């Protein structure tokens, strides 16, 4: 029985090769493998890594912590994946997070000090913050799509001035708030699971349906591969570009609100610091090429989880925290090296020469 099975299995694995596609060339393979290795390593370091307990109506455990901590960057990675798929990049998301959080907290402070106008009520404040994010995205999108400015420069404008704008909104302070509705976005718990995770899943589902169940996903890939050709093929390339930047802005607004809710304040410097770089890194680890085209929202999320699990692993391994950045850089480089076709080709050549 077993003897029959093994050749059969080999046959099956052999059949996985379809054309040029092999498991090694699959972008998903190395990402999933890296996440798997890191999680196994975490399990080896800490035996109760997988344990999840219910404490006071809240699930406690490393896995929940990883998901909860990764939620803001995972949200950013949704928008960033789409932007990168159109051959762009959005450097402004960190600054947009700070702006939106500042707007929300300043408005909610008015509500807390007794303002009764309907637009100071928490749901409207959240809407206004999301609108601010969309507006920032629209600005980036217009610069990129209609003025033909390179995405990295166009979004750098908002990146540079955004923190200044956030400081201007908060008057250079880090205002705090006590409102529970706004704080719920960052610290809320439903059925024991932190609210940011639900928020991410909801946005992921919406965007996934938008890009995979309508033609928009194909159009985004088409624009990323060749914007001019797509334009001649009848795709409104400019509109697609504006759309992805607006989406990225809204995702950034949500991420900013999560961070503001967690710490119950809007710090114009710390909110979203390095967030744009982390998000871009995650998207690339997830296998989406910076030169545009094919993208995968799920793999980008895995990219964030790789970095977050690594940081959690470093934390529980009691390694000195100063080493975190170095280990992160090395792991990221190793993952990228194995994803690189060139690197694998060279390794294969080396092995063959030896053999």
């Amino acid at each position: 029985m077993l003897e029959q099975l093994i050749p059969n299995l080999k046959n099956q694995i052999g059949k996985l090769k379809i054309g040029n596609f092999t498991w090694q060339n699959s972008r998903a393979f190395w990402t999933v493998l890296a996440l798997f290795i890191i999680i196994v390593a975490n399990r080896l370091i800490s035996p109760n890594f997988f344990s999840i307990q219910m404490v006071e109506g809240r699930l406690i455990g490393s896995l929940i912590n990883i998901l909860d901590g990764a939620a803001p960057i995972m949200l950013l990675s949704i928008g960033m994946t789409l932007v990168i798929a159109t051959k762009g990049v959005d450097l402004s998301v960190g600054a947009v997070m700070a702006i939106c959080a500042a707007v929300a907290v300043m408005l909610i402070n008015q509500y807390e000090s007794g303002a009764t106008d309907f637009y100071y009520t928490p749901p409207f404040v959240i809407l206004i913050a999301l609108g601010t994010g969309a507006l920032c995205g629209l600005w980036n999108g217009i610069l990129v799509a209609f003025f033909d400015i390179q995405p990295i420069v166009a979004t750098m404008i908002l990146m540079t001035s955004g923190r200044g704008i956030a400081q201007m909104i908060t008057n250079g302070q880090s205002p705090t708030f006590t409102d529970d509705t706004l704080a719920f976005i960052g610290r809320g718990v439903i059925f024991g699971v932190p609210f940011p995770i639900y928020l991410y899943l909801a946005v992921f589902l919406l965007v996934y349906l938008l890009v995979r169940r309508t033609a928009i996903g194909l159009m985004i890939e088409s624009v990323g591969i060749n914007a001019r050709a797509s334009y001649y093929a009848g795709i409104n390339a400019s509109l697609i570009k504006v759309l992805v930047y607006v989406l990225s802005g809204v995702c950034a607004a949500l991420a900013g609100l999560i961070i503001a809710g967690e710490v119950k304040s809007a710090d114009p410097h710390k909110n979203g610091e390095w967030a744009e770089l982390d998000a871009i890194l995650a998207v690339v680890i997830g296998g989406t090429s910076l030169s545009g085209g094919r993208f995968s929202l799920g793999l980008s999320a895995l990219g964030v989880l790789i970095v977050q699990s690594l940081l959690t692993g470093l934390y529980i391994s009691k390694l000195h925290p100063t080493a975190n950045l170095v280990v992160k850089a090395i792991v990221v480089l190793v993952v990228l090296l194995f994803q690189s076709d060139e690197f694998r080709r060279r390794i294969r050549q080396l092995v063959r020469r030896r053999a």
Partner: protein
Amino acid sequence: MKSRVFPLLITFVVFVLLYLFCLSRFDSFGTTKVICNLLRNYAYLGIPAIGVTFVILSGGIDLSSGSIIAFTGVFCALMIERNGMHPLVVFALILSIGTAFGMMMGVFIHYFKIPAFIVTLSGMFLARGGAYVLTTDSISIRHPFYDEVSKIVYIFPDGGRFTFAAGAFLAVLVLGIFLAHFTRFGRNVYAMGGNETGALLLGVPVGRTTIGIYALSSFLATFAGIILSLSKHSGDSTIAMGAEMDVITGVVIGGTLLTGGVGYVIGTFIGTLVPGVIHTYLTLDGSLTPWWIKIIVGTLLLVFIGLQKLLGSQFDFFKLFRRPPLRAEQQAQ
């Protein structure tokens, strides 16, 4: 030729206008004091910016400069204070380490075809992380050599102090211009930025040049770190946070296109000083709050890019209002 000099011209004109505006408000902008202070305070951004200009000219990007500056500062402080080495030996050591670091990044970019953005981002984490691993304390440096260097200064009649840092900045600028326009390396960089495949087919040693470019950029960032260490007399792992973005902003304001192939080293020099002039103005004015500098620099970035686009030959303003082209069958009707 017109379109290539154009962005530089715009930068130059706007810079002169900005400077004249500042001069009209505050007479001190005419003194050597302000000019020398500008050169001294912005040397640590301007020197790596010249290296990054080469990187961007070749069509790449370098995000690691700020972290390399910090690593250099911490390394120098540790080696001099804790290990008692002579500063000159330490400088030679760190310059070789920095150059090797840049070469490594170049190897990753060229041979393994990983995007420069990501490689240098990892380099940024690595260098900053390396600085944290060395120490998270701020170490002050007390060494006779450092005092000697701070004595090297030319004092103008009206009190402007032309320090070693300012001199080093100008020297690197001159060398950068020479390297870009009068050497084979410089021509190779421009060729690669214009069209890498084309350059390769014409016999440009793309691999060697790529590695050279990133080595140069890291070398200059390390040098800037040394300059900063010399002027601050200390090493701190959190110094120059986000400097890489200020450096790139300076290069972009200086008229270098991030697509590569177009730009001038002298433009970067001006581009780096623009935020400096604004900062000096805001300091002298005193009524404007500090966050305005970020907003103004961002706005200026927009103005520079907008003007370059609007007046440059490549931009077709009327494209905004034009309808999509008719299809062949519609045209036939």
